[in-house]
């Protein structure tokens, strides 16, 4: 834990350093390029402009421009003889020659000049040399801070702030990326694992980290491995048991058929046949449920649910054609959904078959399906005795029997609805049971709809 703590502290320090250093460096650069003019640089730059204007013969125009902004200047040569003096400074120059700086040695280079302090409100004397090495003095006086008077577009004023903000965003993103990336990776892994991808492990890059997140990753991997092993051995055990059960079952089945071949049919042999078949289908259902839990092999495709429901209903009608139990369909406009055809149709078949069995004679099982924006709702309503409220929750557990009268003749093995539940779950849907007010059981399936454009 301390490692992560120290890492975060280090990162924050680094980020702060980046903000300060980056901002400082940026401002320095901007100043050097004269994209940004700081107050203490302003007289210097102004002096350079004045000198440039003098040398290019543009001095009158420049003086006029600056005068309008309330700034006055005077240009003196090496011997402190005025070359150009704006009217506002004439009096001052006559009165106070002593204020002028002492002569400066000739080797002084442009850009390294002395500045002389001002008397009140922004008065500067700047020593400056031109490219030939001639020395000049520039005296400036202004009613406003000089740097605001120099030609400078307004956006430049915001540059430091923007620079600081950008560096801060960069630094914070760095920290947050560093912290969230491994967490995102962890989350991705746990999600896959939660969706029964039992081989999902935290990626080595995260699991090998020497901090709390790395530890969490390794813990998760250990837990996943143990779960995976347990489920695998459980699955193996079930497979082995059913395989072992099947060999004698197969022999019984053949032997009874053989007995019938030799001695002719009898009700006892028929009973043996029937019971072995039930045992067989029970084993098959358990195997299916185990497989759906351990290693589901669903093939998702875009499915026309109307067609699927009609097919299931047709099969059920066919099965019950000699009775007076009926099926009524109420299907709305249903968009395609992403589903596994075989599995989903057997899931629905289990429910419909159940409903057909329990619905009372001369009654109708209603199957309805309607879509909202986000999901599809299929409900199957029978007109049977319903299920006691306290048992509704457990209806989808394997081998759960609500009451003994419900199973004797059914030939249903008590695993059908559990299989249905699991299949719907694998489709990211829900299935629930409730009693109808008028009696009878309603089983409702909710399935998520495909996003538009996915079809």
């Amino acid at each position, binding site marked *: 834990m301390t490692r992560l703590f120290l890492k975060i502290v280090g990162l924050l320090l680094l980020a702060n350093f980046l903000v300060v250093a980056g901002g400082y460096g940026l401002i320095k650069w901007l100043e050097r390029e004269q994209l940004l003019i700081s107050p203490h640089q302003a007289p210097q730059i102004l002096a350079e402009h004045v000198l440039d204007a003098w040398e290019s013969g543009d001095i009158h125009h420049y003086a006029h421009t600056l005068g309008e902004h309330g700034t006055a200047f005077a240009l003196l040569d090496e011997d402190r003889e005025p070359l150009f003096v704006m009217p506002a400074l004439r009096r001052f120059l006559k009165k106070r020659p002593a204020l002028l700086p002492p002569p400066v040695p000739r080797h002084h280079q442009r850009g390294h000049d002395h500045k002389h302090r001002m008397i009140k409100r922004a008065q500067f004397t700047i020593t400056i040399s031109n490219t030939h090495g001639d020395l000049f003095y520039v005296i400036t006086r202004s009613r406003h801070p000089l740097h605001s008077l120099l030609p400078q577009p307004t956006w430049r004023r915001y540059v430091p702030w923007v620079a600081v903000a950008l560096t801060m965003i960069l630094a914070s993103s760095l920290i947050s990326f560093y912290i969230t990336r491994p967490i995102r990776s962890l989350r991705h892994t746990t999600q896959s694992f939660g969706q029964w991808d039992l081989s999902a492990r935290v990626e080595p890059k995260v699991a090998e980290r020497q901090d709390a997140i790395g530890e969490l990753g390794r813990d998760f991997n250990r837990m996943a491995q143990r779960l995976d092993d347990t489920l695998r051995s459980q699955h193996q055990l079930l497979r082995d048991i059913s*395989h072992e059960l*099947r*060999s004698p*079952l*197969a*022999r019984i*089945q*053949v*032997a009874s*058929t*053989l007995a019938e*071949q*030799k001695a002719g049919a009898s009700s006892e042999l028929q009973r043996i046949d029937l019971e*072995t*078949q039930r045992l*067989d289908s029970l*084993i*098959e259902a358990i*195997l*299916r449920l185990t*497989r759906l839990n351990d290693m589901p*092999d669903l093939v998702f*495709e875009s*499915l*026309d649910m109307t*067609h*699927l429901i009609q*097919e299931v209903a047709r099969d059920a009608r066919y099965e019950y054609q000699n009775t007076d139990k009926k099926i009524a369909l109420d299907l709305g406009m249903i968009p395609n959904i992403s589903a596994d*055809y*075989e599995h989903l*149709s*057997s899931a629905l*078949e289990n429910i419909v078959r159940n409903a057909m069995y329990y619905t009372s004679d001369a009654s109708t099982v209603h199957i309805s399906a309607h879509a909202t924006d986000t999901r599809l709702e299929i409900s199957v309503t029978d007109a049977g005795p319903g299920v006691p409220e306290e048992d509704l929750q457990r209806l989808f557990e394997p081998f759960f029997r609500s009451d003994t009268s419900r199973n004797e003749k059914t030939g249903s093995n008590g695993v059908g609805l559990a299989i249905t539940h699991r299949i719907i779950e694998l489709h990211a849907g829900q299935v629930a049971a409730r009693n109808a007010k008028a009696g009878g059981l309603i089983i409702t399936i909710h399935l998520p709809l495909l996003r538009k454009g996915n079809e």
Partner: protein
Amino acid sequence: MADALFDRLIGVPMTQHHLLLADDDTVLAELLAEYLQGEGFKVTLVHNGEDALAASKSLKDMIILDIMMPKMDGLEVLKAIRQHDTDTPVIMLTARGDDIDRILGLELGADDYMPKPCNPRELLARIKAILRRAQPHEKVSHTLSDQLMAGDLHMNLHNRQASLKDQALVLTQTEFDILQLLAKSADTLITKQTLSEEILGRKLGAYDRSIDVHISNLRRKLSDSDLLSIQTVRGSGYLLKIQRMS
């Protein structure tokens, strides 16, 4: 020569069919053999893969192979048999619910499968369905109706030989029958139910992928065709599409 062989085998009425049954569960195999003998078959019993392969070399009308066998498993035996013999029908006995074995078996050229533990009556029905299809069609029509043409495919229904673009097309019995059914009504939908009932002699079960696997085998074998393709009508069945030459 193939014709002569065929006639000798099937042409004689009331032939006693000879089955090879390979299953390592000796007790079960003996019981099954007894049952099948009671139904009028001649049964040769073997209990491991090597013996099964050896026994398959002499002429049998059908081979019933268990997948889980010592020495050589059923799939390997099937692969070895299919290398030199595509005609003899093979039924695989698979563990119930083991879809992978089942599909592998069909892909390797088995004609059908039977989940274990099997109801002997069902096994008998499947054996009979396959043998019945292998019977020659009405002897009378030896001429035109014996020939089936679809695009660049030519099928001789009498000697059960097929050719694609004049190249011999090697098909198992079941593949031949499915292709024949599709080609007879080309460009029309044949439902999976129809295929299951006509070809395998049983109703289509919920998890029965046999037809799909046979179709995918056929697709592979027809891939050289310029004019034919088997199209899937999702949720319903298949149709053989013939592209007309322009």
